[in-house]
């Protein structure tokens, strides 16, 4: 196929056509960092609501999935931690945001199962805690495990460093985090990237997720690697006395 392979590069308009009310959406952000922020802005502007979100944390009110939570667009959240998002906490206690807390390793494996064709996984995590409520428990070689079921989404919204036009993507450093396995676990997978290169420029061992699982590549039009609001605030606070 080589360089003639179909381009997966799309416009924001084409990206936003994939989103509608009531969808289950996976967000690859980590406390709102490593996040597809331009597409999230687009989702906000389109007015998409009643979202069932899956994200490792609740982001922050001005970062990542937290921006959608902040304006009441998220109906439920499957996550591991919301400690950095007081808005998510308040909505949870008020009963307007339905939060399912999942241990972090189990969160990863449930999504991995969803993307890898597995019917679930057996984990010792949560045995003897409230996490085991309502779950099947199996004893394997004398040790107890919980059966945890796969997680999938209608759309996975991930963020990568580079893509080629065929939709092969590459991450930088901790940017892979949850983005790498979420890319397998949705009907439509959209990658927001900083840089676009030609097919062949990313070598076989530089590609983290291969083209066949990526449906759309959106290339950032704004700042390639913006510093997130949390860092700006922390830096201003740290350097406040020096100005």
């Amino acid at each position, binding site marked *: 196929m080589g360089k003639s392979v179909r381009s997966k590069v799309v416009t924001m308009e084409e990206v936003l056509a994939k989103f509608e009310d009531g969808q289950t959406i996976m967000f690859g952000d980590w406390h709102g960092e490593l996040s597809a922020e331009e597409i999230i802005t687009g989702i906000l502007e389109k007015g998409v609501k009643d979202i069932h979100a899956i994200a490792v944390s609740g982001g922050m009110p001005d970062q990542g999935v937290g921006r959608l939570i902040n304006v009441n667009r998220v109906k439920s959240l499957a996550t591991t931690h919301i400690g950095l998002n007081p808005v998510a906490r308040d909505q949870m206690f008020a009963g307007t945001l339905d*939060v399912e807390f999942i241990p972090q390793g189990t969160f*990863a494996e449930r999504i*991995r199962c969803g993307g890898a064709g597995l019917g679930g996984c057996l984990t*010792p995590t949560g045995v003897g805690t409230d996490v085991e409520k309502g779950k099947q428990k199996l004893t394997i070689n004398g040790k107890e495990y919980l059966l945890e079921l796969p997680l999938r989404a209608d759309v996975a919204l991930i963020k990568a460093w580079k893509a080629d036009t065929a939709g092969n993507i590459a991450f930088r*450093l901790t940017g892979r985090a949850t983005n790498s396995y979420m890319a397998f676990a949705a009907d439509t997978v959209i990658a927001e990237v900083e840089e676009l290169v030609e097919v062949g420029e990313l070598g076989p061992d530089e590609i983290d997720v291969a083209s066949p699982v990526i449906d759309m590549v959106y290339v950032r039009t704004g700042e390639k*690697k913006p510093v997130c609001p949390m860092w700006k605030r922390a830096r201003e606070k740290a350097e406040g006395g020096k100005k």
Partner: protein
Amino acid sequence: MAELTGRALIASRCAKFFKDGDFVNLGIGLPLMCVNYLPEGVDLWLEAEIGIVGCGASPSWEDADPDLIDAGGQPASVIPGGSVCDHATSFAYIRGGHVDAAVLGTLQVDQEGNIANWTIPGKLAPGMGGAMDLCAGVKKIVVATDHCEKSGQSKILKKCTLPLTGAGCVTDIVTERCYFQVGPDGLVLRELAPGYTVEDIRACTEADFTVADEIGVMA
């Protein structure tokens, strides 16, 4: 060196559990203070749940890289020989028994080695993050905690009353007053902080415990 007290003493004592080359997860706050008290010749592989083996010191803001962050989303660095991985692999290290030790803070801990540190129903519910996986997969779970709550109530109980993070997983409990090892028959008082007696510990501890034949001094 001046005699350590309080949280510094806890961090210093916890740091003595580590051997050179150990792969260790330290929670935010007091547990992370352990790195300041590592014995001479002990270097660790610090793990960050997001997917770092060999976390280094916090970088300056000038050197902060938006693609290199720790579990709390703060700027991170990687030591020479360190590596990054995706988050599922990070928890394979944790759950798979590859991490030698974890130091965790807590709300409550009990004489059966149960730990409750993730929620107070109706009041505090940030989520368990990676704590339950650490409890399930790490060989040595050290609880580093104030001995009592501000109210004076013991945090070391006969039985945790809050929802558990892990059942029967705690191996050691270090407070500013003493060090308990968690054995098959319950807690064993192994060391006392300078100035404390066994009677002092009995007076401020709800849990039952036995006293080791030889009792050491925490440092």
